[in-house]
């Protein structure tokens, strides 16, 4: 694991022309970058392409990295924006609520209660507004704190806090509603 100081030295060497060293930074941050892109695009190949594109952009703009923030935060913001641009280009797949409920009913007999709840929460998550969903998903990725999520999404930390709390309450409401609906159909 390289420290922040070592990372700055590495960046200086990359900027001086040793571009092969960039692979060290890619290896260190690729899982996070890929996960961010996956949360936004929800598709492996698109996420891979967007995350790679983000790394390539970061390499070309490395000179403009002012070292006031962490390199990782700066990089994740680039990946986040790149994935958002990809999302605008990709046509969203439509799935009606009715279809999803039917899918659930067919599978209900084979799931444990815990699995059922998970399915419900995933469905409830998809009903959140996109910014709230992304805020909550990014916040619950290992090691991301609220400040980092705020910087990544280019929003105020208080806005992110409100988004995360609102999303958690909304998910709880949705889960209760869906379970109640399920109980009525039994």
């Amino acid at each position, binding site marked *: 694991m390289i420290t922040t100081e070592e990372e700055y030295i590495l960046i200086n060497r990359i900027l001086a022309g040793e571009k092969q060293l960039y692979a060290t930074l890619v290896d260190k941050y690729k899982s996070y970058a890929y996960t961010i892109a996956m949360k936004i695009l929800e598709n492996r190949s698109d996420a891979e392409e967007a995350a*790679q594109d983000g790394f390539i952009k970061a390499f070309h703009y490395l000179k403009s990295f002012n070292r006031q923030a962490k390199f990782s935060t700066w990089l994740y913001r680039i990946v986040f924006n790149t994935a958002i641009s990809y999302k605008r280009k990709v046509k969203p797949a439509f799935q009606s609520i009715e279809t999803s409920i039917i899918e659930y009913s067919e599978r209900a007999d084979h799931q444990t209660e815990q699995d059922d709840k998970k399915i419900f929460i995933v469905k409830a998550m998809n009903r959140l507004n996109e*910014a709230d969903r992304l805020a909550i998903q990014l916040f619950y990725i290992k090691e991301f704190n609220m400040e980092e999520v705020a910087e990544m999404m280019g929003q105020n930390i208080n806005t992110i806090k409100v988004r995360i709390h609102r999303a958690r309450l909304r998910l709880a409401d949705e889960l209760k509603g869906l379970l109640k609906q399920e109980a009525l159909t039994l």
Partner: protein
Amino acid sequence: MNKLSPAKEEELLRYLDGELETSHKIKLEAELQGAADLKERLEELRVIRSFLTSKATLETPPKTFTQKVMAGLDTQPVKSVFSPRKGLLLLMGVIIASVLALMLLSNGVFDQTNTSLLVDTTPIKNKWIQETTFSIPFNGKILVNGIIFLNLALALVLLDRTVLRPLFQKRSSVGY
């Protein structure tokens, strides 16, 4: 179940996140003993929290990920030809030019430019052209009006590209 107040729900979230001070926590735990509604809501929020925590795993990118990035480093990212800064400067220039032209127009500077371009009066007429020539009417005011109109159309396009479109794209991307 009665709807809890937003403050109480916030308290439950902070309790689950371990953010409450000990005295506050003890008070809430005592309150939970006698309130079925509160207990039920806490349980719902706990389920959500444990689900979100369990989903907090990192995705594993394909093995060739780093290789592909390194292979792509020589390709320059597509830069926007029209940077917002350049666009705004151009927009200001267009607006200033239009305002100046309007001021000159309203001061009647172009009122005296009603004329005809007569080919008959040119020195080459007698020497080279024997036939009857024609004249072209020229009105400076109409010309300047046309230029101002084109300038305003250009200003609208610039406003759209440099201010409105990026603003709405940013807003839609964060889902306001």
